[in-house]
């Protein structure tokens, strides 16, 4: 049936009204055209953390980095760029660490990767990173020992330039730190005959046998031959005017320290220096020392849980008289304005702070400094080559253990892509777990500014283990 003219006209009117009305409504409700487009969100800077939270010390170090990242996020990111963070569990296994690293860089797109692990993990990651870097530029940071890490970067800069050991190089640290320690032994503890016990691991090879090597530093700008020389501990002690009456290597993993302690006692030692790390069971060692014939001899530990004030509780008070660097004392010497707040934050979270934890926290701030440096000069924070160059040049004023002028990662010497040796003050565990800074103000190796040293160093408070046991 043909449509009547009236109906057709009505339909046309309705359609016209609908179209005109719809367009008008759209125009009315549309946002007014503005002079500026809506703000574009900046691409985030991604920081990946690879660590093993199942091991308390590694958890503490990983958490230290997280504290710094959280602070940056709260402060609005880095140079106006938001900061994203993700963590991977490495289970302290090479295969898991490498898989996690690949995922962080390739799948997630990390710009900075911080590894909290052991040197064997770092070396495997460096090999993998050399493959990843050309397609996925990023920076790999690590806090730990193993001279190989630094030497590889020096000798094959183009291949490994993305790798930074944000710690001190063992072949310089293991000379300067013992020298500073031996100075204290001689001048603060007033001893002359010492015993040296050295953990039998790769990082102590130079301390046991000495080290002589020549490394060629090859960067695009510089080719330089650097001689690395490390004297054995016994020679360093002799140079300091001490007599080494006993020396032994401690097998990794041993629980039986009494023969070494009794040996030191029999040799007439007045002071025992243990070059230890987390590989040595320092808790067992101290418990055995406290009941051995050597208990009246000063005992000084290098690395391990003795870096924590809680070491006192861990040893059940057997640490009375033990000397060590201790890094979570609430009133630790404020090297930077960040030192004490960082320690307080960590303790507030029930976490302990060792030397490495300070470095992990500071590493994040050093990354921040480098990115800011690049952005301030009109560069992009994602130009990783530029950030690497900035890291080599820019100091980190927030470092919690090192004075800012020492935090240069690009010095053209044996510390390239590492920090110079940190020589921390020494503490003694005294009655009721009180931890006292006994470092000497006149120590020529001191890095703490004199004004702070006069305020915080108390060499006059040192007491012999026998005195302390007697209630002193």
């Amino acid at each position: 049936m043909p449509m009547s003219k009236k109906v057709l006209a009505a339909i046309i009117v309705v359609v016209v009204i609908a179209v005109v009305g719809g367009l008008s409504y759209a125009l009315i409700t549309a946002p007014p055209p503005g002079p500026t487009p809506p703000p574009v969100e900046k691409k985030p800077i991604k920081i990946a953390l690879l660590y093993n939270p199942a091991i308390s010390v590694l958890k503490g170090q990983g958490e230290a980095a997280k504290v710094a990242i959280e602070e940056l996020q709260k402060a609005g990111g880095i140079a106006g760029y938001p900061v994203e963070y993700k963590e991977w569990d490495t289970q302290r296994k090479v295969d898991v660490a490498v898989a996690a690293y690949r995922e962080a860089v390739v799948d997630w797109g990390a710009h900075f990767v911080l590894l909290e692990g052991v040197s064997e993990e770092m070396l495997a990651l460096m090999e993998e990173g050399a493959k990843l870097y050309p397609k996925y530029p990023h920076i790999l940071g690590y806090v730990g020992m193993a001279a190989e890490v630094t030497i590889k970067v020096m000798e094959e800069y183009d291949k490994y330039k993305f790798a930074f050991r944000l710690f001190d190089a063992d072949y310089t640290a293991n000379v300067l730190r013992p020298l500073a320690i031996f100075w204290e032994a001689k001048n603060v503890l007033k001893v002359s005959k010492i015993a040296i016990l050295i953990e039998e691991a790769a990082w102590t090879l130079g301390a046991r046998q000495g080290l002589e090597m020549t490394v060629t530093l090859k960067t695009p700008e510089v080719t330089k031959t650097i001689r690395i020389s490390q004297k054995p501990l016994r020679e360093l002690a002799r140079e300091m005017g001490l007599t080494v009456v006993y020396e032994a290597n401690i097998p990794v993993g041993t629980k039986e320290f009494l023969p070494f302690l009794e040996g030191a006692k029999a040799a007439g030692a007045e002071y025992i220096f243990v070059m230890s790390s987390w590989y040595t069971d320092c808790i067992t060692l101290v418990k055995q020392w406290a009941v051995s014939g050597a208990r009246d001899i000063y005992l000084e530990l290098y690395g391990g849980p003795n870096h924590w004030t809680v070491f006192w509780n861990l040893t059940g008070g057997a640490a009375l008289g033990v000397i060590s660097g201790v890094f979570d004392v609430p009133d630790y010497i404020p090297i930077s304005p960040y030192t004490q707040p960082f320690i307080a934050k960590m303790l507030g979270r029930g976490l302990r702070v060792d030397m490495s934890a300070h470095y992990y926290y500071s590493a994040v701030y050093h990354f921040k400094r480098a990115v800011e440096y690049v952005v301030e000069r009109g560069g992009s924070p994602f130009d990783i080559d530029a950030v690497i160059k900035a890291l080599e040049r820019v100091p980190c004023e927030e470092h919690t253990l090192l004075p800012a002028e020492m935090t240069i990662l690009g010095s053209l010497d044996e510390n390239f892509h590492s920090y110079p040796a940190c020589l921390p003050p020494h503490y003694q565990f005294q009655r009721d777990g009180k931890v006292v800074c006994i470092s000497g103000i006149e120590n020529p190796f001191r890095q703490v500014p004199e004004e702070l040293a006069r305020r915080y160093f108390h060499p006059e408070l040192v007491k012999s283990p026998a005195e302390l046991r007697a209630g002193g």
Partner: protein
Amino acid sequence: MVIKIEERRGRIIIHLLNKSRFEWTIEPRYWRNPLIVVILWILLPLIMAYYVPLGIVGIGSTTLLSSLILANVIALSAIAHSLQTIGTGRVNFGPQFFLVVGGYVAALLNKNYGLGSELTFLASFAITALVGLALSPLTVISRGLYFTLITLVLPLILGELIFWRGDIFGAETGIPGITRLAHTGDPMNDLLICFYLSLAMVLILTVIVDKILRSRWGFMLGVINEDEDVASSFGIDTKKIKVVTFTFTSGIMGLSGWFIAHYYGAFAGTMWLEPWVLIFILLSSVLGGKAAIYGAPLGAYFIVLSRDILRSYIGGGYSLLLLYIVLLIALYLLPEGLWGLYRKTRYREYVPVIRIRRKL
């Protein structure tokens, strides 16, 4: 005639130069399922690399591929370990010892003498097999708990040696800077190459071991496994067979170490001597299917993928705890292993397995 093809009793027989002969059973049920599995096995990483976006199973494609590669490495040692268990009638609790020996041979020869990965492959097998040969009298002079204890101590001795001669072995730091297996410039392609290389090693070994077990030699291995004294009374030279089996399988475990050294580009023996490596190899054998050769890769894939998926979802210290609980439950619920599940539903299907009781 160079090639002669004939059909006889349901088989196609190909004669080559009148010397070697290859047989193919026409009936599909004999080869259909293994073929499907191998095709899937080959396609799996490609699917994972290009079609599995981050987050589908909780982990990214690179991690999945990394897991599969490690699973292949573990499977390689587990298959060798299974054959060793069958052929010597003894359970070796130090397979990681041979893995680490092979790894150090590759690392040291590559680093100090510049040998390429092809030559270090041969050297790793040869030297680890020689070490196996030197230790093989253990299979003659000790058995039961004594053999187990001796093999358990071997990794500890090697661990001490690594620290004692840190100047050679790099102590806990190991040996970095080893030539990589693949370097195409694309990390994903490198991963795929490494996967297929490790898969090829596992498949070739599986075929070799399958041939051995189906041969007259395999029958003698089975008799030794069943009862060594009975085997001797039948005139089987048990000493010779045990020594040869121990030597060959040790060399294969050494190849796992070779792969690890060249795959990661750094080798720290102390890491690979850790107990988890032993547990993964043993569990792959047992959970896969109580020394059933086809079960070992299945077990290795199950264990490694479970570990990485749990780590990704749970993290922290709980993932490993949960992994071992899962593995314990699986051991309890699957007395014949994962391979047993397959066999249970397809008991009529021909698949070569060891049909004798083993002293595991």
